[in-house]
């Protein structure tokens, strides 16, 4: 039997957090509700209080600053999709959202919900981790910030606890050019990624890769980084990476993957695809940076 719940509508972020603290585990935030509805209907989540955060103001803006891009937690996937002209990183994120859900669902689904649901296959998580993004979390008495790669604790579990995810910040390091790319394996036009990967490269004026982010999805209980793959790339020139090095870095990443077999794909296939997608992401990043694959 599906649980019956009480509907709560806080008028401020602070009140939302207080409500959540009051009811703890028994309460759930409701953003777009696109994951929640299914989890409630299938009786995966049972809760006595539903805290509707959709009416909170100030959480649905995308701000592009000199040193960072800030995306409010309540920004809908369709709003993110429409932000493609505002920054080249947002262009990639816009392309990612186009792969997600259906146009109808995207008008409801939020960025914060996608991250907070903490699915290892979520599409936005890998690019945020690859870009070294930070989660801005509102607590009862202020704000705390957590790097995206430390945000997740397990399937459907994050460090947010009884607080509220209020925004995601993508740092834009000075005098460096940062790009991000994403690939996923899916089946039909509407699907959850069977496995996905994202890489971000930052290059300085000397065309050296100063920072690499490699994030892999649906190959572990949470989206993981491949530090070895990142180290392999850092320090290289964007004009010196060869085809065989692309393959090599894909291999390194696939060694970090710890996939399982399930109804969607086998572990072996997922591991093999990490190699292909990582290489494709890096190639796309180098292309966007104006580098050449030797």
């Amino acid at each position: 039997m599906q649980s019956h719940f009480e509907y709560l509508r806080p008028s401020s972020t602070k009140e939302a957090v207080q409500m959540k603290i009051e009811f703890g585990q028994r309460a759930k935030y409701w953003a777009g509700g696109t994951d929640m509805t299914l989890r409630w209907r299938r009786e995966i989540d049972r809760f006595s209080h539903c805290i509707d955060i959709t009416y909170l103001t100030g959480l649905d803006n995308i701000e592009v600053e000199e040193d960072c891009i800030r995306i409010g937690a309540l920004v809908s996937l369709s709003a993110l999709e429409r932000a493609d002209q505002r920054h080249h990183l947002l262009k990639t994120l816009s392309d990612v959202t186009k792969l997600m859900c259906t146009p109808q669902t995207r008008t409801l689904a939020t960025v914060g919900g996608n991250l907070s649901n903490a699915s290892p296959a979520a599409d936005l998580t890998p690019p945020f981790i690859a870009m070294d993004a930070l989660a801005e979390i509102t607590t009862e008495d202020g704000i705390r910030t957590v790097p995206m790669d430390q945000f997740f604790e397990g399937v459907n579990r994050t460090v947010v606890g009884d607080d509220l995810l209020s925004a995601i910040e993508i740092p834009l390091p000075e005098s460096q050019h940062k790009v991000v790319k994403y690939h996923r394996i899916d089946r039909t036009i509407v699907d959850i990624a069977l496995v996905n990967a994202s890489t971000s490269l930052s290059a300085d004026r000397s065309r050296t890769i100063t920072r690499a982010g490699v994030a892999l999805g649906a190959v572990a209980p949470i989206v993981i980084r491949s530090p070895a793959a990142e180290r392999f790339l850092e320090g290289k020139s964007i004009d010196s990476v060869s085809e065989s090095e692309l393959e090599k870095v894909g291999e390194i990443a696939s060694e970090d993957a710890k996939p399982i077999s399930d109804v969607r794909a086998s572990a072996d296939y997922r591991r093999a695809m990490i190699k292909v997608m990582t290489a494709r992401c890096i190639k796309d990043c180098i292309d966007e940076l104006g580098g050449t694959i030797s």
Partner: protein
Amino acid sequence: MYKEFEFKSNDLAKAVPGVYGDVQDQVNGMKVVGHGFPVKDAVEKVTGSLKYAVDMTVQNMVHGKILRCPHAHARITKIDTSKAEALAGVIGVLTHHDVPQNDWEAAWFNYRGKVLDGVGRFVGDDLAAVAAVSEEVAQRAIELIDVEYEILAAVFDFEEARSPDAPQIRVEGNERDPYIVEWGDTSEGMALADHTVECDIFYHSQQYASIGRNAAIAEWMGDKVTLWTSSQTPTETRDGIHEALGIPLSKIRVMALPAGSSFGQWWSNNFMMIAVLLAKKVRRPVKIELDNEECMSAVKRRHLEKTRGLMGCTADGQLTVAKIDHLIDNGGYGFKDDVGFFCVDMWGKALHGHYAIHGINTNLLTAGCMRGVGDCTLGASVERMCNQLAEKVDMDPVEFRIKNQIKPGDELRMQHSRDNMHHDSVEEYLAAIPEEYRDEWPKPFHLLSGSTEEILRRGAKSFRWAERWNGWGKPSSVDGPRHRAVGVGTGAHVCGVEFEGNASAMVRLNPDGSLKVHCSVGRQGQGSETTQAQVAAEEMGLSLSMVEVETGDTDSCPWSHGSLASNTMFRVGWATREATRDAKRQLLEIAARDMFDNSDPADLAITDGQVHIKGSMSDSVSISEVLNMIRSDTLGQTSSITGRPAVPMPPSTTFARHFGAQFVEVEVDVDTGKIVLLDYLACQDSGTVINPQVLKNQVIGGAICGAGFAIYEHLVFDKETGAIKNANLLDYKLLRAADFPHKAEVLFGDSYDPVGPFGARGAGEAPIAASISAISQAVYNAIGVWVDLPMTPERLIRALGKV
């Protein structure tokens, strides 16, 4: 002795004399038939006012839920419903102790068994039901029923189930007698072959995955019952209730409603019988509404199948032999023993053949006929073997098909061993056909009209096949990991069947000159409410707006198989036309006598509702004037005219087939295994096209459904329990419109069927088969490896040996 029909092409517009055609049969100059009218329920559909079964309510209705078996195979030893009955809001509980222990049979052996008999034969099987004031209370009560089970051994693998030591699922045993069709001598065929190929292919199970779910509402008035449900087979559903309950057919009324999509899922289903029995027990109307998961895991599905066989041909590409053994798993309650319409007949030019089909029960969800049953599996195996032979003799696939596929006048053998013919041999059957029919019927067991040849030739030209085809196993272009190639595939199916009864229809010509057609067909989006009306309007000389169709009320619609086996246009459409012809004959007799000075009715015609002397519109009178005249006459014979077919329809499985030939371009990513469909041409030979918009929709819909089966769709069964693990649309991958080339084109063949209404034949099932074979072949051409279905990214990568 059998009628020699003059074959004609639609654009020649030649008259065919006799019962089955007259001057009006010319497609050119027809006012309603052949025109792409919007479907009659378009506005209701897009505004959401069309009522499907889930939308229906009746006064005082309560809600039913079904207790489902948690085990693969188990017998109930004790069932205690007291806690459930004590729950506030519960009206009553139905168990097997309340149910008549009669076997009932769904159309075409899709179900055979008792409504409830205390045994669960698969996880999700129906065991009991609760009626309560709300669905929530009913569901809670279901959870309060205490059941003790004796767990029985289960078998999931259909080959294991054949063994005499296997757990027995049915009293009849697990395996049906094989359905065998043979001709010539296969050892001779082997000897003649310069090349042979073999196959051993397993097919996963496709789910109907119908969008829209279903519900059944049953209401009793005294000892009479009415059932509202979405069904493609209204009268067969009524027959099922009759068998299950043992009450007279006259006390049963089925009101079949439209279904969202169906593909064979919503014929007559056991949950409908449960609704009828539960309503009887609780003396209240009961609605049982299935949720998505129940629709996908507790009703039925396509069979798991396996083809083992060989085919051979001569060095110049003449098929000499087809020797094939094909297994189908019927799950718990399916009872089918054949699926072979397609290849036995379409590739019937093979000189020697032997096809054996074996139906086997397992402890899996019941399997039944899904769109293109057998065509999509056995047919796909035969297409693959023929492709492999064509490669061996280095022949173009289009040419190989034209050389080896059936043409009008060729023999049709699929029905040779059909029990329903009620005769021991084909010779006896033929001898029993009454003399008077022989003069009018086409020659049985021979194809009357249509073929793949014309659509293959025209399709190849339009698709620029010769330019784009680069040879067997050779992509037409390679861009990094992306290989492109083209493929062609063919499909055929019957145009309805006559085994359980002949199709009939009734029309009523009303005093205002409007016409109501009563014919038992389904409305699962295939437009029959529109196309049947077009047939009747054309025959009567009315505009389409004057004709409406009742498709689902079994109190007014005469018996027909409904919409199955690509039956609707050919057989029911025939009955609709004959019924209209009968009404028209009566009308013209009255008009000739009373309003046209006792002239010969044969000299009269009707145009736009006006009765007139042929060739002249002066002195015309409207149909309503004719009817009102006799109505106000106190000696009047009638106030409305009822028409029905005056002769039986000839047994069309023995002469009618429809054909599809489809061309596709695919792009395969050989590093990820992903297949993208780039370009599509679907050609269809269904005789006269009654409504090009409707048929286009049918053909593309079939192609998408086949593409889904080719690339993604398959049910995943739990190895331990047989339960379905992907009974949801997240992990059961259906193609959506955006997964299919949006510029896909449809090309219609030009054949004309002398028996079908205005030259039309069936349509629904050839397109799904052709698509599967076309895509399989294109993928082979792109990567040089045959991949078993579904060609998911992972399975493709495995076939390439990359994982």
